């Protein structure tokens, strides 16, 4: 039954406007970060050095730096996919066809998550190709990238990005479920992730340990300043589980009047 809801969700997700804008948008964002990183790299100092880019993880470092942007975009798309069912009124059609609401929500979440993971994979492939071209352009040696260590770094860091994308997607869908408005959900999500958390971290010491955006970003980055990878993974997982439970409880119990 979840498979039916998943397949139905994918019928909607693969509409050309959403499909191409998401895939090309994420690819463009990741590629832009790679180009900026390679163009700004110096022999010493700056945000990154040419020597650092020549390391085994140099291939993927640009994509990882784009984690916040990729996460925010994933969050927004996920929130909009759930909330728009209310604003369009399509939810009532779906619930007549699949009255088991938890099943419908699970299929929908799986559909959106796989969609965003595929978009992330596409973006990563494009960004990696851009990185190879940019490396040649800046004269950065790439031999270390294509070693066993390089590939291990590549897959580990892309795996972390994928886990973070799942986290952002789930939080986005949960928020979309609560506010039931695509625009409102995206605005709240963006404001929280890009502004509110940063302000909180600056004015309230120690909050970075417990904030959802900071925790998930730590996972995406393989560990961040103040929040190590393990703690980020644990706190992020708690937020994801709570978000799924709360969204399911609200969805199952609420009246659908839209």
């Amino acid at each position, binding site marked *: 039954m979840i498979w039916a*809801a998943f397949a139905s969700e994918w*019928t909607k997700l693969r509409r050309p406007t959403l499909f191409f804008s998401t895939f090309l948008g994420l690819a463009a964002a990741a590629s832009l970060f790679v180009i900026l990183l390679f163009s700004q790299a110096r022999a010493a100092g700056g945000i990154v050095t040419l020597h650092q880019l020549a390391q085994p993880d140099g291939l993927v470092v640009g994509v990882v730096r784009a984690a916040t942007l990729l996460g925010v975009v994933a969050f927004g798309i996920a929130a909009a996919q759930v909330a728009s069912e209310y604003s369009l009124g399509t939810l*009532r059609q779906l619930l007549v*066809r699949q*009255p*088991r609401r938890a099943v419908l929500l699970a299929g929908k979440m799986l559909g959106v998550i796989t969609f965003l993971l595929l978009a992330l994979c596409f973006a990563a492939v494009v960004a990696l190709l851009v990185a190879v071209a940019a490396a040649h352009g800046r004269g950065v040696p790439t031999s270390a990238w294509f070693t066993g260590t390089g590939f291990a770094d590549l897959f580990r860091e892309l795996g972390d990005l994928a886990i973070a994308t799942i986290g952002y997607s789930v939080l986005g869908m949960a928020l979309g479920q609560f506010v039931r408005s695509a625009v409102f959900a995206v605005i709240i999500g963006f404001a929280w992730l890009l502004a509110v958390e940063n302000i909180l971290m600056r004015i309230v010491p120690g909050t970075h340990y417990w904030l959802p955006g900071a925790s998930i970003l730590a996972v995406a980055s393989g560990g961040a300043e103040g929040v190590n990878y393990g703690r980020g993974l644990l706190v992020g997982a708690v937020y994801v589980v709570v978000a799924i439970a709360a969204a399911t409880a609200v969805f199952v119990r609420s*009246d659908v009047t839209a």
Partner: protein
Amino acid sequence: MVMEQEAARVSELPGGPLAVSTAGLTKRFGDRTVVDDVALAIPAGSVCGFVGPNGAGKTTTIRMLLGLVRPTAGSGTILGGSLAEPATYLPKVGALIESPAFYPQLSGRENLKALARLGRLPLTAVDPVLERSGLLARAGDRYRSYSLGMKQRLGIAAAMLGGPELLILDEPNNGLDPAGIVEMRGLIKSFADDGITVLVSSHLIAEIEQICDFIVMIRAGRLVHQGSVAELRASQQAEFVIAPEHDADRDQLAGLLRQAGYAVTRGQAEEALFVEAPGVGAADLNRFAARNGITVRQLAERTRSLERAFFALTGTTSADVLDGQEMGAIR
């Protein structure tokens, strides 16, 4: 327990099996009671009109039947499944709820495929319902390019997916031009011919009168009448239209008839009087007028319309419910 007993009593009503039966169905939003103790008993195979003024609770009732809104109290059975477990009967139900709602950027066909996949129906079920609703030629176009009438037809097509035993159509004529309304009438009749029970809510009582053989009337959340349309018509007192030869006699005739105990109202054209005279024939009224020295130019008996029956049963006037709209349209 009381609810269960009442549900059982409704299900045992004579006249064959019931497609929909409820007992004590109630919905409150905060302090506001929107649906109050409604006991529906809709026969299987009927085309049932569901009418009531604006805010009467029709859509909330329909949403409860479809599992979209949780009843505050009450129980029910739909196609043999418990109202408390919509998953047991909804696979056999098709519904168009209020305005049709689909994904604007998908084609009509893709929208139906999404629903078919969700309901685990074969995708081959899509084109036949598009054809039946007259949309096959435009099925590949994006939904957002559809006219209001086409959107309504796609809603009907979606409701038909999977061959339902019960169709619940909320205001299916919305947005349709006169030709579309005639088509919709034919479509609904064809559903009945196929043995499908149809519950159709509409603000057009005249339309309901043409297509339905069973009617449910609610007002302010409470059931005021349900039964066959034929029985309702038969239960209504005959009414006479009477016009004196000379207009100057009209007021005198009205006064005399009132003195005799008949209810008299003026016709819209004002030259005629409408007289409710139970147990009296046209000849009696003619004699009555002649005895009082008034010659009658026009005298005819007419059956009261469903619309007037509605007003009589709900204790409303057209002004109460129409809010300035044309006669025959209530919401």
